[in-house]
C-alpha cells in the first residue's frame, strides 16, 4: 500500500465522520471508458458557425456531421450523403441523404434540416459566400433529397462541403439552423457520433461528450473527417489547462490521457517518460506570418516590403518558435502547405539562399524610407506571435528601421489590426500571426493570400495578378490546371509581397501508452481511439 492510499483511507474515514459523505464507488473499468483530453484552448462557446475558432471546430466535429468529409489524401468523400448528381451544364447539384440518419434528440435528419444548415453556413464561410453569390436556389426535393441550383458551374462544390476549415458545413436541426448566423445557437443537437453533455459544461474548464448510441457509421475505414466514425469509448472529457507545465504533469501522472499540443520546451520531458508517446500531431502543420500594412509608408511601397523579405531569415523565426528540434520546421519559399499536391516554390528565390542585408538596405533606401517609426504590434500572450515579434524587431533594427514595438495582448492586437488609420493615429505597420497548414493547401479557405485591396485581410494588399490567378484556380477543371494556377499565385504573391511567410512549423501531440488509435491530422480525431485500463 502506498502513502497516497493510506492518506486517502485516513482522510476518507475522517471525512465520513465529519460530513457523512462518502466518495462514490467507481465502477471497475469506468476509467478505461472515459478518455480525458487536454485541448489546445478553452471551448468558450459552442456554435461552429458563429465563430471560427479551431477549438470549436474540433469539438463540433464530434457532435455534428457533415455532408462530405475530407480524407487524409485531401479528397472530399461522402459522409451523410448517399449520392450526388450534377447536371450536364454543371449548374445543378442534386444530393440524396443516407437513410437512417438521426439527430441526438431522436428526430430523423431531413432535407429541410440540411437546407437550413447550409444556408446558415454559407452566410459565414468564404466559400459559402462564393456559392451564395452564384446561387439560383437551394431547395428541398423530398425528405432525403435536396437541390442546389447555381447560375454558373462551381467545380469546387464538394470540396466546399467537405473542407475542414472553420466554419465547416455542419448539419443541425432546422429549428436551430434558422438562428441568425451572427447570433449564437443555444441548443447543441447534432447527428454526429457523440452527444454534448451541456449540463456538465464548465466553459473555461471542462466539456464532456458522450457516445451517441444511434449513430450509424459508414462502412469505409475512417480517414480524417471521412469514413466510418467508430467511437470506442463511452465518454470523452475535455479538460482545459491554461498552464502547459500543469498539463505535462497531469499527463505524466496519468490524470489525463491525451494532450493535444504540448509546447516544444516540455516535449523532451514527456519523451523521457516510458508511459507516454509523443509524435507530430498535424502533418499539415502551420505557416508563420507577419503582415505589413500596404496602405501606409513605408510598406505601401513594394520595394520596402521586398527589402524585408530579402533580409529576413526564416530559420531565425522558426528557431524562436520551435527551439532546436530540426524535425519541427522547414524553410518555406512560398505560401502554400509543403508536401501537399499543389505546393509550389515558383518565384520563391527572394526567400532562398544567403540573406543579403546590404542589398535590402539599399532597396529600402530606394523606397524612400527616411527613418519614420514602424509600428510593430506583438501579442505577448501568444507565444508564437511573441517569438516572431522579437525576431522581426531585431530584423528591422538591423535594416536601419525605427521600430515602435507595441507589446500588448491578443485582444488588443486583434482589434487594432482592423484600424485603417495611419500608424501614428491608432493604426499599425506590422503584426504577426500564423495559419494552419490545413487552411493553406489551396486558396479556397486561405483568407491571408487574398490580395483584393480593401476587401482583403488585414494589411489590405492589392495585387491584381495574385487575384487573377486565384480566380484561375477556382475555375480549374483538373489537377494540372490547378497546379499551374497555384504556381502563378505563389509567384505573384511573392512579387507583390502579399505578406511575409516566416516558415513552416509542426507541433507535437502526446498521449499515454494505454491509449491507441490516435491518427495524425489537422484536428484531433476521436473515432478509432480506445483506451485500456
Amino acid at each position, binding site marked *: 500500500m*502506498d*502513502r*497516497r492510499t493510506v*492518506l*486517502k483511507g485516513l*482522510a*476518507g474515514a475522517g*471525512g*465520513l465522520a*465529519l*460530513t457523512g*459523505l*462518502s*466518495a*462514490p464507488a467507481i465502477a471497475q473499468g469506468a476509467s478505461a471508458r472515459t478518455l480525458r483530453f487536454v485541448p489546445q484552448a*478553452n471551448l*468558450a*462557446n459552442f*456554435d461552429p458557425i*458563429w*465563430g*471560427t475558432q479551431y477549438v470549436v471546430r474540433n469539438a463540433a466535429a464530434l457532435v455534428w456531421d457533415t455532408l462530405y468529409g475530407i480524407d487524409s489524401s485531401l479528397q472530399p468523400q461522402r459522409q451523410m450523403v448517399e449520392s450526388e448528381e450534377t447536371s450536364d451544364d454543371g449548374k445543378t447539384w442534386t444530393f440524396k441523404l443516407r437513410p437512417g440518419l438521426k439527430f441526438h434528440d431522436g428526430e430523423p435528419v431531413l432535407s429541410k434540416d440540411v437546407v437550413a444548415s447550409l444556408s446558415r453556413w454559407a452566410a459565414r464561410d468564404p466559400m459559402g459566400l462564393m456559392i451564395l453569390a452564384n446561387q439560383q436556389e437551394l431547395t428541398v426535393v423530398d425528405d432525403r433529397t435536396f437541390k442546389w441550383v447555381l447560375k454558373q458551374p462551381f467545380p469546387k462544390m464538394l470540396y466546399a462541403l467537405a473542407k475542414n476549415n*472553420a466554419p465547416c458545413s455542419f448539419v443541425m436541426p432546422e429549428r436551430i439552423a434558422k438562428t441568425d448566423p*451572427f*447570433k*449564437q445557437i*443555444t441548443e447543441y443537437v447534432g447527428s454526429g457520433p457523440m452527444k454534448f453533455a451541456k449540463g456538465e459544461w*464548465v*466553459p*473555461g*474548464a*471542462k466539456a464532456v461528450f458522450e457516445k451517441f448510441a444511434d449513430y450509424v457509421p459508414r462502412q469505409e475505414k475512417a480517414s480524417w473527417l471521412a469514413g466510418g466514425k467508430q467511437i470506442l469509448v463511452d465518454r470523452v472529457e475535455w479538460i482545459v*489547462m*491554461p*498552464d502547459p*507545465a*500543469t*498539463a505535462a*504533469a*497531469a499527463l*505524466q*501522472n496519468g*490524470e489525463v490521457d491525451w494532450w493535444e499540443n504540448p509546447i516544444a520546451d516540455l516535449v523532451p520531458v514527456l519523451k523521457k517518460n516510458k508511459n507516454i508517446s509523443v509524435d507530430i500531431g498535424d502533418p499539415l502543420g502551420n505557416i508563420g506570418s507577419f503582415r505589413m500594412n500596404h496602405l501606409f509608408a513605408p510598406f505601401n511601397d513594394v520595394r520596402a516590403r521586398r527589402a524585408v523579405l530579402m533580409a529576413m531569415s526564416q530559420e531565425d523565426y522558426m528557431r524562436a518558435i520551435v527551439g532546436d528540434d530540426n524535425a519541427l520546421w522547414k524553410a518555406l519559399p512560398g505560401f502554400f502547405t509543403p508536401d501537399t499536391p499543389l505546393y509550389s516554390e515558383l518565384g520563391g528565390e527572394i526567400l532562398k539562399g544567403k540573406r543579403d542585408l546590404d542589398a535590402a538596405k539599399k532597396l529600402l533606401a530606394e523606397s524612400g524610407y527616411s527613418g519614420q517609426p514602424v509600428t510593430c504590434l506583438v501579442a505577448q*500572450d501568444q507565444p508564437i506571435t511573441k517569438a516572431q515579434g522579437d525576431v522581426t524587431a531585431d530584423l528591422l533594427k538591423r535594416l536601419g528601421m525605427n521600430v515602435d514595438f507595441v507589446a*500588448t*495582448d*491578443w*485582444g488588443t492586437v*486583434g*482589434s*487594432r489590426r*482592423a484600424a485603417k488609420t495611419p500608424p501614428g493615429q491608432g493604426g499599425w505597420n506590422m503584426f504577426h*500571426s500564423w*495559419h494552419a497548414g490545413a*487552411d493553406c493547401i489551396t486558396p479556397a*479557405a486561405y*483568407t491571408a493570400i487574398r490580395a483584393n485591396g480593401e*476587401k482583403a*485581410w*488585414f494589411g489590405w494588399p492589392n495585387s491584381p495578378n495574385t487575384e487573377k490567378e486565384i480566380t484561375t484556380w477556382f475555375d480549374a477543371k483538373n489537377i494540372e490546371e490547378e497546379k499551374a494556377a497555384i504556381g502563378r499565385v505563389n509567384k505573384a504573391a511573392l512579387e507583390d509581397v502579399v505578406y511575409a511567410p516566416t516558415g513552416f512549423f509542426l507541433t507535437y501531440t502526446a498521449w499515454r501508452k494505454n491509449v491507441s488509435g490516435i491518427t495524425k491530422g489537422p484536428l484531433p480525431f476521436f473515432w478509432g481511439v480506445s483506451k485500456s485500463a
Partner: protein
Amino acid sequence: MLSYILRRIVATLPVMAIVALFVFSLLYIAPGDPAVVIAGDQASPEDVERIRQSLGLDRPFLVQFGGWVWRILHGDLGTSIFTNLPVSAMIGQRLGPTLSLMIVTLLLTIVVAVPLGVVAAWKAGSLIDRVIMGFAVFGFSLPVFVVGYMLAYIFALELEWLPVQGYTPLTQGFWPWLENLILPAIALGCVYIALVARITRAAMLEVLQQDYIRTARAKGLGQGGILFIHALKNAAVPIVTVIGIGIALLIGGAVVTESVFAIPGLGRLTIDAILRRDYPVIQGIVLLFSFVYVLVNLMIDVIYTLVDPRIRY
C-alpha cells in the same frame, strides 16, 4: 450592533455602484474588442462589425452602461458574450472551487501561522524565533506559482501522493474534495502564513511586555494559559485585521493558483474574461468581489467587538 450592520450593508451599495461604473468605464476605454476574438483570426472586418452590432457593442457608452445597471437592478447580471450563458450561472459554477480553496487556505493559515507567531514571540531572539522568521521571509518572498510548481513536482509527480490538478465537489466525498485542494492551499497560503505569523509575533511581543502578563506570571499561571488565553486574546485585533485584509490577497493569489493547478474557479474565469473582453462576466465578478470585500471588512469590525469589549459602535 444590528442597526450598525444594516447601515454598513446599505452603505455597500453606493460603493459597489462606484466600483461598477469605474470598471465599466475602464473596460469601455481599454483597447481590445470581443467581436474580434469571437470572429476568429480569419474573419473579415465586415464579419467583425456585424458581430459587434449583434452584441450591442456599437452602442454609445451611456446606453450600454444604462442597460447594464437596469438589468442589475432587476437581478440580472447579464449574459456572457462568449458562452451565451447567464453570468450568474457561470459565477455559480465557479464559486464552489474558489470558496473551497479560500476556506482551506484560511484554515491552514490560522492553524499554522498563529501558533508559529506565538511561539516566535515567546522565544523571541532564540534560534527557534530566527528559524520561524526565516521561514516567514522565505514564504513571503516566493511567488505562488514557484511554490505551486515545486509542490506539484515533489508531491504529485515524484511521490505520487496527491493529484496535480482539478477540483472535485464536496458532494463527491470529503477526501476527493480535500485531495485536490491540499497543494493549491499550501501554495496560496505560503505568503499568507508568513504575513500572519509575522504580525502575530509582533502583536504578541507587545502584549507580552504588559504589566498584567507579568502579574499573571507572578501569580504562577502556566505558560500555555498566559500565551493562548491572556496574551493572544489581547493581541487579536491586529491579527484579525491582517487575516481580513489577507482575504483580498487570497482573491488575487487564487487567480494564479487556479491556473497552476487547473482549478475551475473564479480566478481563472476572471482571467479568461479579461483576455477575451467578456464585459458582462468581468462586471459580474468585480461586483461580487467588491461585495465580498465589503462584507469581510464588516465581519472584521464585528469580530473586533468580540475580542475587545472596549470597541463599541
